[in-house]
């Protein structure tokens, strides 16, 4: 059965968005990412104009992350306090990032810088997570649960003012830490035009030292608010949110997020990290292929960045 999408001005087989929603929602519930880095290119592949694909995806993520946050909150895996500090930082970072794009555009080679930042970020984060989680899986086998020796960065973070305890995560940090790192992710996400879940998750795991299961829930919580803001701005200023497409996607993604959350509880934190790392690396490779192979069409829709 086909539905016509009133804003995208195209028709789509309903099974495609529902299926894509289910798959990406599953990843969302499992790993605490929005999945925009997968969903947006897939929608474009199925004939949705790029600007509408990105905006509608953020609308859909509102539903998936509500569903996922709720599932994780029920088992006590959302650190609201940490989430709010990250959000505050992310909000400021987003504003800075939008200005950054303007500067890049004025310089002329915005697209090059954005694409390169994206590939390098994805590659670095994926590779680091992969190596780190594999090696810590090995360590836990040999029962070397030695207390992490405090690194220089760790000591520096401890020396900052405004230290506070985050109960749910069981960590103590200066409130400046989540705000600053939330801000950095916010800047990068705005510049790259993505939600930034794939950056926020590693920040929470490796810098804030939060347990993986709380990371997933908390990440979804802050993604929810980010995507509400983005959806509204896109609908209001660019008219690029397709309501029908969003509904079809969220039918799949809300269910997928629940399944992902349940499934995630059965996996260990290290296993989750490895799988996420593999997905991020696979996306990196795909983008590298896209950049190097000759495209079949040399022209494309305008808009977005």
């Amino acid at each position, binding site marked *: 059965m086909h539905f016509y999408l009133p*804003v995208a001005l195209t028709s789509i087989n309903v099974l495609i968005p529902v299926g894509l929603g289910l798959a990406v929602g599953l990843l969302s519930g499992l790993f605490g990412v929005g999945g925009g880095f997968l969903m947006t290119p897939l929608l474009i592949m199925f004939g949705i104009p790029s600007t509408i694909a990105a905006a509608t995806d953020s609308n859909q993520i509102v*539903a998936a992350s509500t569903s996922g946050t709720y599932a994780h909150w029920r088992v006590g895996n959302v650190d609201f306090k940490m989430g709010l500090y990250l959000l505050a930082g992310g909000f400021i970072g987003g504003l800075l990032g939008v200005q950054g794009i303007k500067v890049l555009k004025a310089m002329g080679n915005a697209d090059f810088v954005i694409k390169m930042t994206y590939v390098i970020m994805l590659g670095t984060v994926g590779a680091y997570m992969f190596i780190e989680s594999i090696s810590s899986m090995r360590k836990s086998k040999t029962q070397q649960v030695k207390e992490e020796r405090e690194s220089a960065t760790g000591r520096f973070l401890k020396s900052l003012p405004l230290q506070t305890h985050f109960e749910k995560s069981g960590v103590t940090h200066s409130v400046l830490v989540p705000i600053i790192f939330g801000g950095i992710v916010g800047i990068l996400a705005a510049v790259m035009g993505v939600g930034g879940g794939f950056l926020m998750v590693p920040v929470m795991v490796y810098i804030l030292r939060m347990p993986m299961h709380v990371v997933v829930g908390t990440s979804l919580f802050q993604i929810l608010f980010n995507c509400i803001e983005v*959806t*509204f701005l896109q*609908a209001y200023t660019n008219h690029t949110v397709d*309501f029908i497409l969003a509904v079809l996607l*969220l039918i799949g993604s809300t269910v997928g*997020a629940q399944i992902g959350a349940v499934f995630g509880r059965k996996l260990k934190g290290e296993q989750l990290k490895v799988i996420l790392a593999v997905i991020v690396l696979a996306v990196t490779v795909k983008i590298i292929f896209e950049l*190097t192979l000759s495209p079949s069409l040399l*022209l494309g829709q305008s808009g977005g960045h």
Partner: protein
Amino acid sequence: MATACAVLLLLMSGPASAALTVTPNHDHIDIDFFYHGSTVSIEGVSDTGTDLVMKIAASAGHQSLRKKGKVAGLLWMNVGELKFDHVPSLYSLHSTKKISDILSEGERDKYLIGYGSLGKQTVIQPVANEADKTKWFDEFVKFKEASKLYAETEGDISLSVSSGEQHYHVLIPWPYQAAPGDYIVTVYAVKDKKVVGTAETKVLVEQVGLVKSLAVMAKNSAALYGIISILAALVAGFGVGLIFRKGGGSH
């Protein structure tokens, strides 16, 4: 339903072109919720011995597209915008025979029949030279053909003679990618490589019902539309969460 209104007779020069009519089976395509393109059947009467060429086109406008190119000799990415002027958003040709065999180049250019003629009137900016322009016009056609909006189909108009009249008929798959708007169908009667008669009709594509309401709302009440989209997503996410709690019950 739309028989009477669509018959238009436009007699051109010469005694040879006594009659040419064009009638679509429907001149009004409604885009509703389940729309997935349509099929338009067009028929008419023409003088015996004439060949036919049919052009379906939206009025010429301009379009900006991003162009891809190699950066640093290695990486493909967007390298700027190209502006195309005097190009229709939809352009589809149909005929009884190979068009270059039945119509001279001069006539094709005069009536804008064929990609070649369309390319001549198109203005592309910025391009370095004529070769560059040709290259990008070809890419433009490729882009449009990929989204089914441009097509050159030759030999798909069928002819039959009954009671001394020549009847023609063609079935045209109407792409769902075609945006709402007016589309002009022009039939050219062709003889001795010249156009000897033309007739015209219109196909109107329009959004109706829920599709129209949503499209209008997205444009005209953007803030409300955004808020509704967000609320619907929140309710759906929360609702599914509740269903799973009741259904699952394991934790």
